[in-house]
Structures are given as structure tokens and as C-alpha cells.
């Protein structure tokens, strides 16, 4: 027996003329529509009202309870020592994001220290903070050349421009 070799037959498909015309029509429509690209540095696009990124700290309101560092799912928050002078407050009243707080003390002198390299902005620290010392803001433009993404408690109180200096 001699084995016969079968020729492979190419599937016969005609060139889709009507489909091509439909394609041209559906793509040609987009010429008259607005481009979706936003030109980032000049045009920042729409940022939703409830968008939050950068973490700030009101140091006088922090009581050093370490709850934020315990709830943080990525261990981005660690507590750090900072000898802050709290004596300059009038009547011991601190203004926070959700109203005034009275008679707050931080006897161990520990404050949160956030690593933004691993922060996923889950906002659990803001939610659990008993005195509203940690709060998140609209600011998101904190990209710069650096080796460390960690913000010390002092840096958490500053605006971004001051941190870069």
C-alpha cells in the first residue's frame, strides 16, 4: 500500500466587500466626534467629587492609639516618634475635618508614618481614626524623583510643594 498524501484545501472565503464598507462607515463616524484624550498637564480632566488620594494628618488631634497602623491592610502605616509641642493651643481645642475636639493627649508621642508606595487608598485609616486626625484629600499629584515613598509625620502635615523642598 502506498500512502496517499492529501492536499490541504484552503477554506474558500470571499473577500467581504459589504463588511468592509460597513467597517468604513462605522469608523468614519468618529471623525466628527470629540477625541477622548485629555492633555494631562494643561487639562486635568474630570476628577469626581469623592475622589481621594493624598493622606494628611492633624498632628495635634492624634492621640497615638495606633489603630490606623493596625487596620492598614498593606502595613503601609507605621508609628513613629515625634516630640511635638502641643502647649500653644487655645483652650486645648483642635480643629479637625469633622468639627472641633477638646483635651486630646498623646502621651507616648507616636504619630503615623505612611508609605505611599504600598498605599491602596482604601480609606480604612480615615474611617477608624477616633479623633479624625488622619484625613484624605483631592490632591494626587505627588509624583517626583525620589528613592523613598515614605512620608514622615512632619511631612504628612505639609502641602506637597513644601515636602519637595
Amino acid at each position: 500500500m502506498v500512502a496517499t498524501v492529501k492536499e490541504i484545501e484552503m477554506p474558500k472565503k470571499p473577500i467581504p466587500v459589504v463588511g468592509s464598507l460597513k467597517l468604513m462607515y462605522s469608523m468614519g463616524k468618529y471623525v466628527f466626534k470629540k477625541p477622548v484624550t485629555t492633555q494631562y498637564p494643561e487639562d486635568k480632566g474630570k476628577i469626581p467629587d469623592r475622589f481621594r488620594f493624598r493622606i494628611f494628618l492633624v498632628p495635634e488631634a492624634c492621640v497615638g492609639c495606633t489603630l490606623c497602623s493596625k487596620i492598614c491592610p498593606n502595613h503601609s502605616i507605621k508609628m513613629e516618634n515625634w516630640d511635638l509641642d502641643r502647649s500653644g493651643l487655645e483652650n486645648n481645642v483642635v480643629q479637625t475635618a469633622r468639627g472641633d475636639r477638646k483635651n486630646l493627649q498623646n502621651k507616648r508621642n507616636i504619630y503615623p508614618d505612611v508609605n505611599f508606595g504600598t498605599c491602596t487608598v482604601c480609606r480604612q485609616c480615615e474611617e477608624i481614626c477616633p479623633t479624625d486626625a488622619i484625613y484624605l484629600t483631592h490632591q494626587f499629584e505627588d509624583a517626583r524623583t525620589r528613592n523613598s515613598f515614605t512620608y514622615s509625620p512632619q511631612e504628612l502635615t505639609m502641602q506637597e510643594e513644601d515636602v519637595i523642598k
Partner: protein
Amino acid sequence: MSLLFRIHQWFSFLGNFASYGLAYLIQSIVVLIFVALSFVALIYIFRKYMARIQRRIGPNRVGKFGLLQLIADALKLIGKESILPENRDDMAYKIAPVIVMIATILAFVLIPFGDLAYFGSLAVTHSKVTLVLMFGILSIIPIGEVLGGISTKSNYALLGTMRAVAKDISFEIPMMISVLAIVIVSSRSYVTGDAITGGLSLSGIVSNEIIPYGIIEPLGLLIFFISMIARASYSPFDLGESDSELISGYTTEYSGMRFGFFYIGLFGMVYLSSFLISLLYLGGSNGPYDSYVGFIYLFIKTDILVLISFLIWVAIPRIRIDKFVDLGWKYLLPLSMVNLVYAGLFVLYIR
């Protein structure tokens, strides 16, 4: 009155001989500048148009609206090192892009651009066989492509060249036959029924073309349009340089300004093919008051065709080489024969 005589008039104080010499020189330079500017504009328009179809913005950083982007690109191409492959055939390698470039520019000289108010006819070449010359020049371009592909001794370039040659032989015969049908139709005036001359020159065809030939023979228009897409080798039929399969076909080993020549040849061919279709099939510069604004009619028709070509380029994916050869020999060639017979019958029986 034509452009040549107008320039001759301006310089008539120099005497007959000198003024004619200057006039020829200046009108050639005017055409060259027009061609170069339109290439630059065309590439800019293509990039913007493609961006809008893909809902992007396109070039917008260099100059206002990115208008200087093309000049920046050209400077970059000139400044780039031209890398020469080691096993090349030197003469053929260096001459190939120049052939493509020169043939593309030379073809623009033969186009009758129509009339413009003060200058009169803008046609540069006053020959009686411009149609023959035009398609002669169009058949020079494949020589450049084949030389460029073979001389580099690169496998990708060789494959690309083989595809390009297979593409060329399958569409050029239908293209020439559909042009022949145009010559037959334009040999007799379909208004009065008299035999008329000038059928082998583009300007003669345009002057006989009171109703566009695209209406009389739509089949010929279809065949010629497909052939011109294949000649310019853009997206559905860009088999020669199919850049997603063969790196860039016969232009693989070219860099710097030599690649720029091939690129300019591609865009010039898109523009030239739009000019040819609007001259042969869409009535060219004919229209109301065409002795004043004929050039503008031709220009508008050409630019609309360019936009349609770009849309085809962006929208339709490449077809396989065997399907294209099938299309050429099994469909386009018989259809063009039918079109030729139809054109003969039309000339015989329509008075």
C-alpha cells in the same frame, strides 16, 4: 493663456529667448514647490485624520496644532545615520529610493491642473501623449521597489519584493484595460456624436469629459480605484511592505532619508492616484465657470478622494496575497474586459 505665457509676459523685457527660458524654469520650480508642499500637508492630514478616527488628538506639540511636526520629522530623518547593510549591491541599493522618489514627482508634471483666474491653464507639460507618459512613469516605480528589495540581500525584503511583484502583475493589466476603455469612450463626443482627437492626452480626455466618465462606466471606476489602491500600496493591498508580517517589506534595510524617500513615494502615490481618478473618471476640472476656477474643482475632487483613500487605509485590514492574486486575475481582469466591450458598444451606438 497659460502659466508659461504669463511668466513669459512678465519677463518679456529680457527678450524672447531668455524670457521663455526663465518661464520654463520658474514654472517647473512652482510645480516642484506645489508637489513638495502637498506631500507635507498630506502626511500631516493623514496623521490628524487617523488620530480623529481613533479618537486621539494627533500631533499637537510642535508649533500651533502640531503644524511643524512634519518639518521636525524631516529634520530627524535627514539627521539620522543611514545604515548600510553589509552584503548589499551598492549601486542598486542607493539608486532604488531615488527612482521611486523621482518617478513620483515626475508624474505630477504631466497632470493638467486646470485653469485658475489670472494665470489661465496651469498645465506644465503640453504633450499629446501625456496619458501614455503617465502610465510609463507609473511603471517605473515598481523597478525602484524591486531593486530596493533584492539589492539588500535581506530575507524580509526579498519576501516583500516577491509579494509586491505578484501584486503588480495581477492588477496592472486590468488597470491598463480600464484606461483603454476611457480612451475609446473619449474618442467620440457623446454629445454630438463626432469623432474627436486628443484621446491620448490627459488634458484632451478632460476637455471631452462633459459628463464624468465615472457615470458612464462605473465598472471602470471601480476597477481603476482598486488598481490605484494597489499601485499606491496602502492598507488593504499593502502586500509589499506588510509591516505586521514582514518587518517592513522591501524598505526593511533602509533608514534615514533613504527610507524617507520611500515614505514620500507612498504618500505621493496616494495623491497622484486621487488626481488620476478625478481626472479620468470624475470630470477633472470641468464645472461651471471652469475657465476661472477649474483648478479648484480638481483640487476639491482630489482632496475628497484622498480622504476616502485614507479612510480605506485606516479601516480595512490587509488581504492575503493569494486572495489578491485571485481578485486580480479572476475578477478584475474579466470585469475590465466586460467594461472594454461595453465602452466599444457605447461609442458605436450612442449618438
